[in-house]
């Protein structure tokens, strides 16, 4: 157990890709074997994630102090350019690591319906999981960047081969958009590398924790204009992922055209990487610029909330509506982060976790009806509640969770964000709170059009939701309820780090 304990993050990161290597060797035609190997390869990180939950010390804050990170692995990777293999977890990354493990496993189970080129699909998916885990666990910027980019290729193929009618367009749009943001990030990465010194060795470093110590910055890097440019470069790169208005236009296409399980991962995990990047990298390294930029960021967050909701209301495709609802929900995260208060930051982290669960449920549910009816037009359905009551129950649950009904995790997260931001951004919060009306509106309206009202005779014989699909949904629903009623365990997990992060940023005032 010693090896597992001391390398738990590496195992979580690399077990999926090892599983991919194994399943590539399976002879042709044995699709079931491939599926179960993939399921096993994504189940193991989940087991390790549970172990993480129990082994994590909630009092250590991490954020910028190396000794306060847990499950640390620190080796030299490429000595000649000072790249380190530095992995560790703190309260910011813990919920996301667990979320990734859970959603990946459920997505693999949810992908059992794929019949075309199963081996390729599963191998690419597992490679994607490795990338995602690596991003959340890395504390070396170069390592972070490599894992970040590793995700792009599998996503391109997963959307482009197994996607819907406009898959090629959606896939290349996603790839180009994200790559553009990534190269900006690369430039900032290199600028940071050459203008900081490693306090231990005196040379250059990619270690994020060293970047966070403002004393390592050289004179050029201390210039405020330079810092604004670098911060904005990183911001654009992360904002594309969030997706923050106006960099969100790739999302509707990518989500709609991606297969169900990939939409789940895209919305559930990939979107969180943008905000995680801001929390992990931008805020601690450029706290002065963060404070300078807080108001525009909050404004953009509110735009996301309201604009996302309005767009969702206008959609006729159920999946596109859910996609825009994701845009809207991520606005809360940005608002909470921009507030720079402990409650706001904790609320943002909670919203990341909660939204991951809820949006995963939503996309799974959309996939259920798409599998049966082969279209997602809201107005094409009607009165399904009478035919598929269990499914309707799940959808209602998910919709209510998404609009922030008390008793579910979304409510806790959104309220914490509002509480945390009210002092700092009163007008924004008022607008956002009013924006929730739109959120509720489109959810209820869609619910009414699809499930209530007169039964559309075409779907009188619609199949009920089956056991595998329920298996994918039930854990998510249970967690949503659990966090909604008793949020303390999750809050304890992330609180220390959220507080420390805010203190770190505010310290420059």
């Amino acid at each position, binding site marked *: 157990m010693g090896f597992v304990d001391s390398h738990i993050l590496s195992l979580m990161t690399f077990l999926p890709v090892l599983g991919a290597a194994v399943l590539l060797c399976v002879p042709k035609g044995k699709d079931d074997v491939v599926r179960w190997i993939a399921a096993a390869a994504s189940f193991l990180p989940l087991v390790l994630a549970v172990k993480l939950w129990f082994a994590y010390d909630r009092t250590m804050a991490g954020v910028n102090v190396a000794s306060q990170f847990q499950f640390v692995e620190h080796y030299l990777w*490429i*000595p*000649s*350019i000072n790249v380190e293999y530095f992995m560790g977890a703190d309260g910011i990354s813990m919920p996301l690591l667990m979320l990734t493990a859970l959603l990946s496993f459920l997505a693999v189970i949810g992908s059992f319906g794929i019949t075309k080129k199963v081996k390729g699909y599963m191998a690419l998916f597992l490679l994607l999981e490795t990338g995602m885990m690596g991003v959340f666990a890395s504390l070396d910027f170069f390592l972070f*960047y*490599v894992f970040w*980019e*590793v995700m*792009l*290729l599998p996503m*391109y*193929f997963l959307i*482009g*081969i197994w996607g819907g009618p406009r*898959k*090629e367009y959606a*896939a*290349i749009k996603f*790839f*180009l958009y994200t*790559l*553009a943001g990534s*190269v*900006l990030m*690369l*430039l900032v990465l*290199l*600028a940071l*590398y*050459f203008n900081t010194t490693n306090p231990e060795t005196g040379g250059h470093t990619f270690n994020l924790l060293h970047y966070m110590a403002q004393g390592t910055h050289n004179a050029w890097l201390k210039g405020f204009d330079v810092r604004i440019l670098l911060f904005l470069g990183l911001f654009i790169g992360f904002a594309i992922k969030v997706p923050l208005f106006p960099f969100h236009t790739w999302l509707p296409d990518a989500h709609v055209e991606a297969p169900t399980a990939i939409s789940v991962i895209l919305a559930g995990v990939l979107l969180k990487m943008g905000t995680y990047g801001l929390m992990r990298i931008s805020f601690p390294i450029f706290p002065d610029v963060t404070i300078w930029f807080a108001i525009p960021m909050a404004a953009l967050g509110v735009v996301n909330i309201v604009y996302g909701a309005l767009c969702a209301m206008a959609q006729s495709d159920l999946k596109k509506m859910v996609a825009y609802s994701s845009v809207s929900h991520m606005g809360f995260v940005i608002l909470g982060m921009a507030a720079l208060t402990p409650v706001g930051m904790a609320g943002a982290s909670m919203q990341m976790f909660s939204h991951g669960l809820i949006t995963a449920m939503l996309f799974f549910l959309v996939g259920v009806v798409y599998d049966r009816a082969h279209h997602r037009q809201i107005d094409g359905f009607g009165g399904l509640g009478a035919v598929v009551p269990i499914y309707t129950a799940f959808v209602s649950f998910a919709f209510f969770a998404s609009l922030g009904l008390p008793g579910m995790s979304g409510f806790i997260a959104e309220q914490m964000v509002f509480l945390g931001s009210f002092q700092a951004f009163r007008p924004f919060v008022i607008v956002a709170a009013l924006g929730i009306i739109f959120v509720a509106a489109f959810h209820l309206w869609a619910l009414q059009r699809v499930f209530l009202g007169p039964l559309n005779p075409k779907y009188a014989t619609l199949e009920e939701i089956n056991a595998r699909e329920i298996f994918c949904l039930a854990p998510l629903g249970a967690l949503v309820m659990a966090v909604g009623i008793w949020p303390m365990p999750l809050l304890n997990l992330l609180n220390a780090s959220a507080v420390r992060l805010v203190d770190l940023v505010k310290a420059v005032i």
Partner: protein
Amino acid sequence: MFLGNLGSLPYFLPELAVTATILLLVALHVVSKRKTTSAPGFLALLGVGAAILLSGVSAPGSGKAIFEGMAAYDGFAIFFKVLTAFATLVVILMSMDSEELAGRSKAEYFIFLLATLLGMFLLSSATDIVMLYLSLELVSIPSYMLAGYMKGKERSTEAAMKYVVFGATASGVMIYGFSLLFGMTGSTQIAEIGRALASGKPALPVVLAAVMVAVGFGYKIAAVPFHMWSPDVYEGAPTPATAFFSVAPKAAGFAVLVRFYYTVFAGPDAAAGTWRMTSTMDWPLLFAGLSAVTMTVGNLVAVKQNNVKRLLAYSSIAHAGYMLMGFVLLSSAGIEAILFYLVVYLFMNLGAFYVVVLVRNATGGEEISDFTGLGSRAPFAAVALAIFLFSLTGIPPFSGFIGKVYLFAEVIHRGVYWLAVVAALNSVVSLYYYARIVRAMFLQEPKDASAIPVPAVSGAMLVLLAAPTLILGVYWEPVARFAHASVRMLAF
């Protein structure tokens, strides 16, 4: 200080090996009754292999000036000899595999290939402007023949014609520049010219010389605006020859570019690992502009291409632009970045062309539409090509990314931020056209879904080229150290 003719011979072994191979190939061709054996190919392989092995025989320590100062035997030259010889090796194997060239005796083809290689060996080590011109022509003229090798094909003849005319013009301009340098300084040795120029010369002839020589070298590496020959030649030449042109003469062109400009128009600076510009003309700025234009034109025009070979030609132009970034920095880290990039570029580019050869053998076509559905028809080759194309784009975890990181890093280190931003944006643009091929292979269904068999030898070659592309993306320390050790150029 200078080694005489006889004393230089031990340092000239790779060139002698190649020369002997050429002569043996001629003899073989003249003597053999059956014209389509693969004996010439194996002989060529042996010769080039011997050349690679002999390259490092006398370890330089510090460099030696051989043949009365005509050439230099130093780490820099050895690096390029090994690089170009290895590229030739792969191209020989590719040519033996190609059906475009089948049915004719390949001995003459290999003679031209090896003659070009000999020229490149000399070009990498030339330290005298006469030798420089001679070796540049020795690289160019057999290349003309290689481009026009398919006598019956119009495209091939057109390619050769364009190549000849363009090459002759560029060489003419270049030699005029050389003559200006000789007139100003009275010497043909580049080191002496460098010293004479450093002590102050009228500005106009120096500027003219620098620009004219840039024309000649720029033509060789296909930099904009001297690139016009490249797409037509790459498209018309037989594919293995195209693969060769895109890697080896380009590498040799960079070798001579660095050596010439850093010796003649710059001198070593007090700070270790950097150079100081000595001429009044800001030639790094000129080349930075050339680099930016080359990258941009190469990438933007490639977007519109439908012929894969032409697309790869424009992509090679763009990559020359990236490598020029390292050249303008006047630092040894910049040169290291170029050397590292050349190594990874060799694998990626030769690999991509290899798959093009295979597809052409099977379908007879070179358009993107001929690659449709390759993912299901020849999955191994398709995956390999995808690896090479994404590596060319510069995405982790492939070696192309590491190459770009080294270049970007040094550019940012030296503060030329605008160039880094241009290059970054260009990388994004390049994704679009590389992804077009990948899209055709994997995302589209083929009209004819029959499987394309990939012969075992070709498969092995693809593995041999794809493996470094993958491995060097994760662990590249040895290559980085080799590049670092090779930056020692002779300065006498």
